[in-house]
């Protein structure tokens, strides 16, 4: 086991696959000689050259559409979009072409396309560099949406993304990219399948599902609550499309109470889907209403005091858990 950063772990996965699959190429702004704005392709240009690490002009719709066509004709493109907010310019290509291609062609065309980059609120990045858009991507049939929170998961899920035949949105919270965690030695070739949640902390009093960065915040809150005698089970879904509700359901059978923590806003967040599914399949297990804790219903503000006010933090998460226990 080694302690490496989330970004390094994902990069290892990419490098490993590029070494054995010559059809993989990466496009994006600054991913060539610069190695990516976040270091996502560091060192790869020197190895593989411009055709496989292609810097692009600022034309998100153009290069996403281009990669759609490339994926239809025998290549395995990776779009490294830097910030998810930029890729909104390509929403039409993603929704109308990428997501629908397999269906329109009755399965004769696959769409082995990876679209990856960072999401999330933090560091006063403000509203054009802080989005997540998980519900929008998860709602459309044909896309996979992957949100790992640990280096171990980032590498394992990236390996799967680079070997499956579905289009994948691989979304990395910007505040997780520099975090470190244990990852097996490079010789160990492991894959994490989509649709498998991870139990980040076991507990028996309440189930808390947390998304992306909120997993870490919730673990902090759970640690504090343990001292008060409250035992919190924290679940990291790891992928929201497909979404592993079975694991959440099993947990709720144990605890009877469910809270979903999401830094992004209501209404119609991922928490709403989880709540509806658990309410439906786990109705009799519920001892209290299912609750969601979301960020403020607002574009992301710039000033640190405003930014802090609109996202859940360990204290507010702990209070939300306490309130749910009382129900």
């Amino acid at each position, binding site marked *: 086991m080694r302690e490496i950063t989330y970004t390094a772990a994902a990069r290892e996965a990419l490098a490993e696959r590029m070494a054995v699959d010559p059809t993989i190429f990466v496009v994006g702004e600054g991913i060539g000689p610069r190695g990516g704005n976040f270091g996502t392709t560091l060192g790869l240009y020197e190895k593989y050259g411009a055709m496989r690490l292609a810097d692009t002009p600022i034309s998100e719709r153009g290069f996403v559409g281009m990669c759609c066509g490339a994926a239809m004709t025998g290549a395995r493109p990776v779009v490294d979009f830097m910030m998810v907010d930029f890729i909104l310019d390509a929403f039409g290509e993603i929704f109308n072409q990428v997501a629908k291609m397999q269906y329109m062609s009755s399965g004769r065309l696959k769409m082995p396309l990876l679209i990856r980059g960072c999401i999330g609120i933090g560091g006063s990045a403000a509203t054009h560099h802080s989005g997540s858009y998980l519900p929008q991507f998860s709602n459309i*049939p044909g896309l*996979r949406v992957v949100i790992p929170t640990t280096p171990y998961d980032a590498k394992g899920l990236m390996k799967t993304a680079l070997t499956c035949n579905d289009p994948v949105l691989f979304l990395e919270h910007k505040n997780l990219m520099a975090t470190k965690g244990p990852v097996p030695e490079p010789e160990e070739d492991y894959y994490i*399948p*989509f*649709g498998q949640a991870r139990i980040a902390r076991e507990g028996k009093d309440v189930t808390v599902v947390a998304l992306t960065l909120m997993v870490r915040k919730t673990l902090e809150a759970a640690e504090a609550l343990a001292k008060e005698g409250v035992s919190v089970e924290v679940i990291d879904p790891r*992928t929201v*499309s*497909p*979404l*592993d509700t*079975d694991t959440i*359901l099993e947990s709720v059978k144990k605890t009877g109470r469910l809270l979903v923590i999401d830094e992004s806003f209501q209404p119609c967040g991922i928490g709403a889907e989880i709540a509806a599914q658990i309410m439906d*399949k*786990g*109705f*009799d297990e*519920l*001892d209290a209403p299912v609750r969601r804790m979301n960020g403020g219903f607002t574009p992301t503000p710039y000033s640190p005091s405003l930014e802090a006010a609109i996202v859940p933090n360990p204290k507010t998460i702990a209070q939300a858990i306490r309130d749910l226990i009382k129900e």
Partner: protein
Amino acid sequence: MAVEIVLPRLGWTMEEGTFVEWLKKDGDEVKPGDLIYVVESDKTTAEVENFDTGILRIVPNGPAAGARIPVGFLLAYVAKPGEVLPFEGGVGTGTAHSTGSGTAPVPEQPLSSSKGVEGPARAIAASTNGTAPAGKTPAISPRARKVAGQLGVDWSDLKGSGSTGRIVERDVRAAAATAAAAIAAAPKVNATPVAARAAADLGVDLAALAASMPGKRIERADVERYAAERVASAAPALRQAQGPAPASRKPMSSTRKLIAERMTTTLRTVAPVTLTTEVDATELVRLRESLKADAANSGGEVPSYNDLLAKIAATALTAHPQLNARIEGDEVVTEASAHIGIAVDTERGLLVVVVRDAQDKTVRQIAQASRELIARAKDGKATMNDLRGSTFSITNLGIYDIDAFTPIINAPECAILGVGRIVAKPVIVKDKVKARKMLALSLTFDHRLVDGAPAARFLQRIKQLIETPYLWLAA
């Protein structure tokens, strides 16, 4: 074979159009590109094009100008010369509607929606869809559980009518209705089997006994006591001596006996000391008058002086808990809550009804409770709960113009407050003579439990609360 001319769909959502007119006549020669009739849809007026070469044969009894016709409606044929058409008895290809529009089959079952949600190789967990496994507590919906609580239904043996065998609200309500019907049909006596046997042995009328203790389960002790009363009252009258008018004799009632017994027991055990004081009750009277006036406007209970004093006593007791105590063996048991006993004069004698948790009740709530309690006591319908558990008592002889007196403690309590009459008197207030409403209070306390000074302080507190009611309104 003749080509059918049917109304085409001129626009994706068009379902019918309005026929306007024919541009050709029946029997005309037509060729591809000719416009043969005009139709109107919601969006537009269109001249419809013909695709074939031949003779136009218009179906008879066709639509008149302005008629609404559906898409696919058969209007005409383009036929070869001399060809016999279906409407002339010839063979046709069937109506345009059935084959021409090629209607697609419409499914009757909804699609399973879970497939799209699950990823590859994830089956739906069977346990979430099946009925509750045998041997486990049945499932009950949150709502049903709530209703079960409200109606007092034990649902553990109910059969649920929900789709997974879950007990739902209707099941609970049905069970409650059945139980209510059963109760209505059942005999009215609630007695233990042992009591019932004792009653039979001793010749006690269970129904009569039950009437004197409604809502309570009759136990053997109750039967035996009741029987003893009967026997005592059935004892032969003492022989009377001859001579001047004889004194009347009557056996002591059970209540009287009870009282007698309790009085002597109390006085044998407690060390009673009575403190008296005179209190300026002018403010208290003013308060009560305003409550009376308010009740006249908005309805509701008018608290009696006993109600007000109960509230005051409870308030004082929270600050002086030693007087909210009793002796049990070697222990002093101090109650956390003040249950104020109010002495009520009834036909059967003195009864003390208990207002529970008086410190938590508002004056109005105390008034309501005491009214109901007193009514029951006077009607002979007081329950054991009504009469038991007081921690401090009030006895009021004011209406009989009594001032101070020496009330006897209501054992096992620590103290009792005797209340005299409220009477206007001249009083010195700030060196001036004023007419004030004065009230005599007599506190008897058990010197075993409490010394004179603390008892006096307690009485002083009561005095303060009476003289300045705002103090306990803020409490």
